[in-house]
């Protein structure tokens, strides 16, 4: 055995274990984070299953024979079914919200005749596409399961589904919502992932740059220079935003290549034009999304600057900033799988209260043309940012930036919250 290794290792472990910042960051936080993430995943799956079991379908039946009646009864055994008295599909679409339904089936007039003759019958299925998340398209999967089951009971390949999507109340013929969901996966997961990386990366930069001034003993000199104290704060925030922005652009370029692989799964004949379908944000949408992302980024950076101001060195700053991460990761992961409107009210309130949820919510909302939600989110995050910026500017304007320290002993703050250095 290496001479002195055991003794040195013991010293290392003592030092590391006795550092509360490491204890919290490496042991306690993961112990909390993973159960929370597990809970989110479980909740997401449960919600998806619940929504699948609650799938409601409107039936437009042009057939008067016995087989269509049997087929409707067959459908009713798996999902909720409401027969509609209408002559065309265009009359049925506006009725969807009245029944809280997401699916329509149009049974052709020759259904019974073809089933009896064991010849192919084409049945049209229409599914509402909302851009809710990764679990969207579950309705399409249910239809597939029903069709397979029905074919197995009657005769193989008699029933052939023809799927179409309903986007913003308009029927997009021949476009399977699941195909759309695959295409829109970039919007469903790119934004949350980008948010997680952008925010955590830029917060680390901001926190490190403030702590570095303390650790390298340059802060005191800086604070006696003939410059506006707010300029120091603004410079720190801007520098972090620029560096993080460059990193995000590099990341997004790489991520787009990765997402390119999804489009290869789309049949070449589908000829999907997302812009024509209204599933690509407009110029105003992109602008609002940019503003939403910017204010969220600014608030996160200002918060990181404030928190890291209480740390004595870079390691301490990075540890304390880690406490903000759950507020970034949890809404990102949750909204990756679920639509915020599908969440129970208390969770919905929590998600809306977290400023870092809003760019993710905005990414979905601008796609669907819901600018009010985006606007309100921007207003809320901007107000939050103003408060944080005010606190940060006050911190830089006073001696607290120099003297404030967080005490971790016993995971409690020091008697008065701060201690001061003096000689």
């Amino acid at each position: 055995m290496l001479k002195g290794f055991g003794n040195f290792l013991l010293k290392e472990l003592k030092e590391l274990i006795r550092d509360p910042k490491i204890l919290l960051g490496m042991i306690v936080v993961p112990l909390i984070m993973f159960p929370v993430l597990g809970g989110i995943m479980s909740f997401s799956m449960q919600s998806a299953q619940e929504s699948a079991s609650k799938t409601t379908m409107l039936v437009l039946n042009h057939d008067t024979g016995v087989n269509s009646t049997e087929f409707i009864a067959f459908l009713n055994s798996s999902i909720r079914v409401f027969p509609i008295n209408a002559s065309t599909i265009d009359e049925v679409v506006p009725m969807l919200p009245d029944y809280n339904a997401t699916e329509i089936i149009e049974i052709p007039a020759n259904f019974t005749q073809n089933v009896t003759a064991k010849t192919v019958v084409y049945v049209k299925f229409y599914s509402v596409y909302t851009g809710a998340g990764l679990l969207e398209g579950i309705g399409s999967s249910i239809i597939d399961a029903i069709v397979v089951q029905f074919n197995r009971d009657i005769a193989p390949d008699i029933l052939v589904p023809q799927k179409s999507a309903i986007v913003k109340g308009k029927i997009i013929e021949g476009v399977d919502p699941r195909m759309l969901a695959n295409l829109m996966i970039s919007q469903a997961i790119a934004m949350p992932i980008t948010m997680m990386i952008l925010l955590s990366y830029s917060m680390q930069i901001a926190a490190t740059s403030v702590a570095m001034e303390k650790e390298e003993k340059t802060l005191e000199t800086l604070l006696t220079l003939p410059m506006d104290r707010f300029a120091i704060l603004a410079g720190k925030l801007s520098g972090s935003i620029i560096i993080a922005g460059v990193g995000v652009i590099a990341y997004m370029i790489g991520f787009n290549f990765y997402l390119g692989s999804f489009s290869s799964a789309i049949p070449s004949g589908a000829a999907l034009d997302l812009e024509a379908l209204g599933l690509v944000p407009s110029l105003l949408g992109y602008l609002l999304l940019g503003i939403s992302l910017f204010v969220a980024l600014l608030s996160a950076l200002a918060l990181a600057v404030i928190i890291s101001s209480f740390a004595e060195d870079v390691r301490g700053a990075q540890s304390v900033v880690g406490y903000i991460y759950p507020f970034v990761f949890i809404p990102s992961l949750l909204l990756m799988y679920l639509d915020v409107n599908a969440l129970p009210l208390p969770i919905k309130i929590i998600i809306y209260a977290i400023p870092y949820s809003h760019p993710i919510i905005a990414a979905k909302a601008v796609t669907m043309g819901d600018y009010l939600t985006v606007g309100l989110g921007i207003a809320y995050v901007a107000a939050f940012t103003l408060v944080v910026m005010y606190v940060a500017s006050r911190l830089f304007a006073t001696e607290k930036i120099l003297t404030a320290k967080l005490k971790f002993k016993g995971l409690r703050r020091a008697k008065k919250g701060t201690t001061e250095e003096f000689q």
Partner: protein
Amino acid sequence: MNIAIELSDLTKDFGNIRALNHLNLKIETGDIFGLIGPNGAGKTTALRVISTLLLPTSGSVRVFNLDAVHESAEIRKIITYLPEEAGIYRNLSGWEYLEFMAKFSAKNKDQLHETVKEAAEICGLGERLKSRAKTYSKGMKRRLLVARALMTRPKLSILDEPTSGLDVLYSYHVREIIKRYVKEYGVTVLLSSHNMLEVEHLCDHVALVNKGQIVTEGKPQDLKDKFGSQNLEEVFAKVVGFA
């Protein structure tokens, strides 16, 4: 008599600890004034309050008749402060660091260039100014920092242990430069030091600080005469009752 610094009844508390205790002091313009005292006497706290880094708990601080609480931004335009443990941005070269600092006061490019050139002469780092600061020794960093504090010819330069970390030759060099700047450009210098010999040779006036209070002040020779001592070290020991 033109007063550069006036401290009236200055008190600074950190929680329950009183670092400065009703301190009174007047420093004349063009003076080299030394604060001397043991560790924890309150020297650095006094310098930090005067340089507008810390706010007084009570009492007043005036720098060239400007109030340190209400006119701190104006004060920062006419002073430079060299902390005892100051650092330099690791990834900037010495030249870039001096340029960065000079830009806060230079009015045009020519003045900026002249200021940095002057700092280069003061620090004597030559070609090494092109290297990144992380490659500098402690002494080289200190020379650069002293040059930074003097290059803009401020009305008041506050130097906390200016020769800390410097060898004998460069300490001598720095002391001579400080004297030259005061003489040629009328800079007022307030410094603190543990090195009594340095203070004796450099300062026109000194104040002995103990437990946040000034226990005595005057010209070094006058103090030595008054206390019948050979040097300021002995004066200090007698004043605080150590000898």
